[in-house]
């Protein structure tokens, strides 16, 4: 099996029937050789401020954590488990109520056991991001899902 073609994050997301990403309503957008982009449609179940309707920050972390994990999978060319070691997110500005949030993460370095990822989230204009993320992951070798 050719590892470079054996993992399709879009197919994985489309087949998903349960779990946190399905519950959030997030969906696959696109991927490249070392990156993956997901989208989180606006949903009033996910707001933290009834007065303004601004999305809570937590769902954006979930979106970026998943996009980061998928970026590692596409760079490795295979779906294997990995554990998030740490994740830092800077909230550059609030997401605008009513708009979908896009999250794109890139795995810029893979070692044998650790993957390093950076990413950005935006609500329509990639040049005006709402958040930036840096995260590292422990790769579980030999434990295919």
């Amino acid at each position, binding site marked *: 099996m050719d590892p470079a073609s054996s993992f399709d994050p879009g197919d994985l997301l489309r087949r998903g029937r349960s779990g946190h990403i399905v519950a959030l309503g997030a969906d696959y957008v696109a991927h490249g050789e070392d990156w993956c982009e997901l989208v989180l449609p606006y949903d009033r179940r996910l707001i*933290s401020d009834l007065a303004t309707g601004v999305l809570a920050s937590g769902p954006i972390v*979930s*979106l970026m954590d*998943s996009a980061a994990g998928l970026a590692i999978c596409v760079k490795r060319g295979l779906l294997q488990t990995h*554990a998030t070691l740490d*994740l*830092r997110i800077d909230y550059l500005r609030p997401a605008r109520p009513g708009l979908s949030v896009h999250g794109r993460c890139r795995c810029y370095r893979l070692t044998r056991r650790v993957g390093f990822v950076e990413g950005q989230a935006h609500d329509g204009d990639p040049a005006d991001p709402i958040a930036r993320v840096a995260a590292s992951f422990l790769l579980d070798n030999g434990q295919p899902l």
Partner: protein
Amino acid sequence: MIKVQLLPYAEFLGISLVHQDNGSPLLSMSYSEGLIGAPGRLHGGAIAGLLEIAAIAAIDATLEEPDDPRARFKPINVTVDYIRPGRAVETFARGIAVRVGTRIGSVHVEAWQESPDKPIAAARMKLLIGQKSEHREED
């Protein structure tokens, strides 16, 4: 005290207030299938969501008056360390307000399952407080 059960996102995650000791609220996130990431493990984002809500609740609990003008929170950043796998069981979290000034709140928060001595994750979070931000002026 923040009304966590009234926030839609807290309800989405299944978070409720257990009790409040010495000013620091203890929150619980009951297990549900919608919190799962990898098979049998909680999603890192769901754990981060619980940590953030516990951090905000910890800052809010330091304010004596519910209409304190500082009772507006806007996250600046959060750094989450994942320490142990989150299993498919109930999870608890409690934040300690490191400092609540007039402009910035700084919180250390931990999440655990079987015992507070075995945290599954910890985070540092900074928030702008008492700021009339552009998206809240209609409040």
